[in-house]
């Protein structure tokens, strides 16, 4: 019985997940665009200019969602790391490694757009401020996870090591979040929080929430694409890939006749 469950987790799940992910991709793409297009239009055109920062505040519509996502992706990876370590679910490891590039990219976008916002507002591209530094560390943690995973030939060991490192890196998340409270920093404090009324005008808030939702669907889209690619690549010699390829070849043969 135990062997059957183990087999299901290690090989059975992809046969079910792979086609499902394929069916979901067009829908997730549609949802991404559905939120992105009005978010961009409202953020760049209709939202009123900020009374202090003028039009430069529009950088917020890509900077803030990217910074939020850099942390949310990591949080999702940390949950998957617990699942991977406790229940030995291989799919959770695939989810972590497939999340790393997009998570690192969100951190990179947050840092770069922050530089392009910091230059006109603070007069500097970069300062060694607590918020900026902890976000940079987050980017390095993402890259470290990727490097560690690729350092092992055996993907079972690689997955375990990666999951442990992912959990260790979680300590950085509250540091990023509270950095603007704990330290006296140049970075402005949060204007949108879960429990207080946001200190931002509704016409400025709506495009921000649209962009944040669009970025969540973007993460889901990239995750599904990358998980499918990683699964085929790693499982090339396994039964489920063989079945998918043979079905595909049969379909092509029938189309030729």
């Amino acid at each position, binding site marked *: 019985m135990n062997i059957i469950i183990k087999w299901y987790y290690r090989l059975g799940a992809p046969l079910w997940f792979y086609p499902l992910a394929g069916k979901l991709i067009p829908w997730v793409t549609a949802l991404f665009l559905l939120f992105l297009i009005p978010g961009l239009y409202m953020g760049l055109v209709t939202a009123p200019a900020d009374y202090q920062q003028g039009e*430069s505040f529009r950088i917020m519509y*890509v900077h803030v969602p990217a910074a939020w996502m850099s942390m949310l992706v990591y949080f999702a990876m940390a949950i998957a790391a617990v699942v991977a370590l406790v229940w030995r679910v291989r799919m959770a490891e695939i989810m972590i490694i497939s999340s790393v590039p997009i998570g690192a990219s969100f951190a*990179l976008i947050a840092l770069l757009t922050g530089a*392009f916002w910091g230059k006109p507002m603070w007069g500097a591209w970069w300062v060694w401020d607590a918020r900026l530094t902890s976000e940079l560390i987050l980017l390095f943690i993402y890259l470290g996870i990727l490097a560690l995973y690729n350092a092992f030939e055996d993907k079972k060991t690689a997955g375990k090591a990666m999951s442990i490192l992912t959990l260790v890196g979680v300590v950085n998340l509250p540091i990023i979040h509270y950095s603007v409270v704990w330290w006296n920093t140049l970075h402005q404090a949060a204007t949108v929080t879960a429990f207080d009324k946001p200190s931002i005008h509704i016409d400025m808030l709506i495009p921000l929430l649209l962009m944040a939702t669009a970025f969540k669907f973007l993460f889901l889209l990239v995750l599904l694409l990358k998980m499918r690619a990683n699964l085929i*690549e790693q499982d*090339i*010699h396994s039964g489920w890939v063989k079945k998918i390829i043979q079905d595909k070849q049969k379909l092509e043969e029938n189309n030729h006749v």
Partner: protein
Amino acid sequence: MSEFINMGGYGFYVWSSFGIAAVVILANIIEPILHHKNALKEADDFYSEES
């Protein structure tokens, strides 16, 4: 229109930010598509040789 591009004098900073984000996001969508395509092709070759 030129007012929109100018962004109250902040055009360079605003459009650089959105441009960088667009490039990074597009790369994140294209890369897994190519990765998947290559992996499928490799698998396809492997099972074609076998039969």
